[in-house]
């Protein structure tokens, strides 16, 4: 083989490998981006209540290993120490325990109210209303030692502006189910 022939063959091989390398970038760049952002995306999805799972009024839904049912949502009007346009709202749930490992399944339990504009209210500690002994909050229920088959009564209290009371719906999120959360519909929906 002549020197010219060798040069031509080397050149062809080099061009082929350059083309292969460039094409491999099409795969490698998105792959490295995906690997680099995997933890961030996982944290984003695992730490936020993003996708609602609607639950019709009167029905219960399996969530965090237990069956959740909204039993009541009502305003507690007439509290004297609040601003005039502020309404305390009570959300009551009945939860039948399935998996009793609540400290893992219900970790980061968050009950909230969501209105038609997507605004979210967290429970308040300002308006404290008397409850019977067997009513708990989501967080206190985690440490209640409830067993499989038990039914827990949960109540959360919120402060909501009067204008939002017509469109608020209760919602529940727990770490083991995120990014999904339960969005309860009311009787009138």
């Amino acid at each position: 083989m002549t020197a010219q022939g060798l040069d031509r063959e080397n050149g062809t091989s080099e061009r082929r490998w350059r083309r292969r390398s460039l094409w491999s970038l099409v795969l490698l760049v998105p792959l490295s981006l995906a690997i680099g952002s995997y933890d961030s995306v996982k944290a984003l999805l695992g730490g936020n209540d993003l996708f609602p799972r609607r639950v019709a009024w009167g029905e219960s839904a399996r969530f965090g290993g237990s069956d959740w049912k909204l039993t009541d949502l009502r305003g507690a009007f007439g509290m004297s120490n609040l601003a005039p346009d502020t309404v305390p709202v009570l959300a009551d749930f009945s939860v039948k325990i399935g998996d009793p490992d609540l400290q893992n399944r219900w970790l980061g339990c968050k009950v909230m109210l969501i209105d038609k504009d997507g605004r979210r209210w967290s429970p308040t500690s300002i308006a404290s209303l008397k409850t019977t002994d067997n009513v708990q909050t989501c967080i206190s229920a985690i440490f209640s030692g409830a067993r499989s088959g038990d039914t827990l009564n949960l109540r959360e209290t919120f402060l909501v502006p009067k204008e939002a009371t017509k469109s608020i719906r209760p919602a529940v999120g727990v770490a083991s189910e995120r990014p999904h959360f339960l969005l309860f519909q009311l009787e009138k929906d």
Partner: protein
Amino acid sequence: MMRKLANVVLLLAAVSLCYGLQVSKPHYGDLIGPIPARGELGDTVVGRSFEVRAEKVEFARKLKADRFGDSKVLTTGGIWAVVTVEFAARAQSATVAVASWRGTTGLTYDQTERLSFTDGLLPVAIDPGLPKKARLIFELRPDEVSDATLLISEKLMSALDSQAEISLGPVAIGPDGLPPGTVDTLDMTQPI
């Protein structure tokens, strides 16, 4: 010859570009630091999760406060600055917990912890649609009151989150070294 020269020029250009990138890159602390939302006294400053408007700044030599039912008068070797603010939550309930006063020389004063049980101090829980007033109280050196900036954020390490930065403007200093409007005692037991 020309090709070699072109390569040397290209190399020098690459070196200067790399050096430029190195010296102009922001500090890591700035990259992951708080994101400022700026405004002035009276402006509504909008952050990611809360809005805040500083209504007024008062100065006092002493503060009167309740502690476990007893009335206490808190004196200071400097001056008390009390900023009345109104907070509003944006899309969801939030808690605003941290405020500091950055003086004109850069000295930064955290809000005082001497009135820990007084109503209306941070942390303040705010809900959408329900604005709430609060008092931010600082114990300062009198020469730090003018051209100060109020820094307010949800938490102490507000990395990549909003921090309201409110310019409080110039404050005249009287012959006694205090602002002319300084009162002897401000009563913190009064509602905001």
